């Protein structure tokens, strides 16, 4: 076991980061909002933590808290603007936000120079990004010390998601996803709850970004491009969006796939794409689709056809996004 961990520590770390990111987009999808701003908020978190780490003596935890606070403030301001948008329009607006954030970090030093009037300050270092000094991590209880905070963070997030689905707050979000006008007739302030979900998602993504700094070490704008936002979405959708298990499974699968397929060398990207396509065609509701697994279970028990299931499947159809 220790061998397995030390051999695959990078995969484990990145899986944990991607799980946190998958959960951050899950909460907005759970409310029926397709937000692609998470890569941007991750960048905000990572840059905040990296600046704190390189310029002050604060421990990682301080940077982590500050990163979440910064992201939440930005999310509230931006969210107030866009939270009334729907579906694909929301997706594109948030995508635009993500790109603006990336471009800001790419060229932010110009802005800083313009404000301070000092030509020698380089906060963000443009395309090179911020490099954090390498300290070889010590092992604590079989895991490197950089992995522990991530593991703890993911555990807290999963606990939060489990309680969410049982709480009143979670049901309100779910109601908004299923039927917004019905929800607002029941006296739910739809806009406020949508904003809340957006801000929580932003905070989670920023936290993941902050905790990823000691692992990624080079914080550069290239890490937070459009493709990154799409990857986050892909892991959530591939895993399935009915419960929190979906994003977790999807993130692990998508992070591990290139590693598992390493023996294919040049061809692994193609196989990677094929697996994504086949998985989504065979299980359009994601790998964790509870209906699929329960039907599998029932089939094994009774072995009868599933005509009734096909009928209910259509009725139960929930538009996500």
């Amino acid at each position: 076991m220790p061998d397995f961990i030390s051999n695959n520590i990078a995969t484990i770390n990145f899986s944990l980061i991607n799980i946190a990111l998958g959960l951050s987009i899950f909460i907005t999808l759970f409310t029926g909002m397709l937000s692609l701003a998470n890569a941007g908020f991750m960048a905000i978190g990572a840059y905040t933590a990296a600046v704190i780490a390189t310029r002050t003596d604060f421990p990682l935890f301080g940077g982590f808290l500050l990163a979440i606070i910064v992201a939440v403030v930005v999310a509230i301001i931006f969210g107030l603007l866009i939270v009334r948008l729907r579906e694909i329009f929301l997706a594109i607006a948030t995508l635009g936000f993500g790109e603006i954030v990336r471009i800001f970090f790419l060229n932010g030093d110009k802005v800083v120079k313009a404000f301070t009037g000092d030509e020698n300050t380089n906060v963000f270092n443009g395309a090179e990004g911020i490099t954090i000094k390498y300290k070889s991590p010590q092992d604590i209880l079989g895991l490197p010390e950089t992995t522990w905070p991530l593991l703890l963070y993911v555990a807290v997030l999963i606990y939060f998601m489990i309680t969410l689905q049982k709480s009143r707050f979670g049901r309100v979000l779910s109601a908004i996803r299923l039927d917004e006008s019905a929800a607002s007739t029941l006296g739910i302030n739809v806009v406020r709850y949508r904003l809340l979900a957006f801000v929580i998602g932003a905070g989670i993504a920023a936290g993941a970004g902050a905790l990823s700094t000691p692992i990624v070490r080079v914080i550069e704008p290239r890490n937070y491009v459009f493709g990154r936002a799409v990857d986050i979405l892909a892991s959530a959708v591939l895993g399935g969006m009915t419960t929190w298990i979906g994003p977790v499974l999807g993130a692990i699968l998508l992070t591990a796939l290139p590693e598992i397929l390493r023996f294919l060398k040049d061809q692994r990207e193609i196989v990677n794409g094929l697996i994504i396509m086949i998985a989504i065609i065979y299980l359009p509701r994601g790998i964790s689709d509870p209906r699929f697994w329960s039907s599998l279970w029932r089939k094994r028990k009774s072995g009868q056809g599933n005509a009734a299931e096909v009928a209910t499947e259509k009725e139960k159809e929930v538009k996500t996004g």
Partner: protein
Amino acid sequence: MEQLPQQLVNGIWQGAALALFAVGYTLVFGLLDIVNLAHGATYMWGAFFGFVCVTKLNWSLWLAIPAAMIGAGLLAILLDRLAFKPLRTLTRGGLVLWGGFLILLLGIVGKWDDPLKWTLIGAGAIIMLVGVVQDYLTKVPLQVRQVPHLAPMIASIGASIILISLSQGIFGAQVARFPPGTVSDEPIQLVSGAVIAPVQLLVLVIGVVLMLALNFLITRTQVGRAIRAIAFNERTSRLLGINVDFVIAQTFFLSGALAGAAGVLLGLAVRRIDATMGNDVELAGLTVIIVGGMGSIWGAVAAAFLVGMLRVLSVAYLDSSFRDAFVFGLLILVLLVRPSGLFGRGSSTRA
């Protein structure tokens, strides 16, 4: 300010190329409500088709552009059959098609000896063809499906990964260029100190011609009427006897052909063809179709010129490094003021 005429010229030809790309996007979205993220990969393959025609087959550019359009159009149909059709209706033919596709990929990707490699590729292609025909003739599908909104988008991401890595495998990772002299380099003097390179003029002319042709097709022909009918209401069109599946294939062909033309033309104009060239246009295209109003063709064209102009002018008069930030700023602004886009008229009057 004395640069202004030149900047306007640059903005216009870039807008024309962007319009070609974005109209294909918006056609598919208007018809099926799918954001086809593999559109950029189709565009890239179109550029490579044109490139191969010019360099390997020594065809003239006038032959290479239509060839690339047909190639990219067929690729788009294949994309629909492999990635999107199984999510609408699952047929036996569709499964055969997938089987053939896997064999074909195995043939292309694997390190086989020569006769075996071509046997695999040939067999895969024939099985795929059988699958397409069988799929087309199917009267009773295995399953009519209702999938979540985002599933087609994820399928298109997978397809895009495959297409990009295939082209990297076949054409290599380095940047390809059309041989110099494909189009003459002599700039043409326009009025008041603005010049336009012949290749840019070519982009503009072909762009405008194709837009007009598309407009004719959509508004005046039977195919166009069918496309509009399906965009309006698919179920009713089916009841009225329109072969919905065939029309969808035609729409994908149109969308792919336009993307292919855009690929060759931009590949010529910016002198750069590589596997990732689709990524840059993808985002600009998304912006264009949103600003123009999802599904509205003329909206997309107008927005493409607007975005092209904005990109050029922000480089010339503001800060070049913030170019895309201005474009996305415009995007968010438009969404706030008119959430359905500048020319969108709600969802019922698409295409």
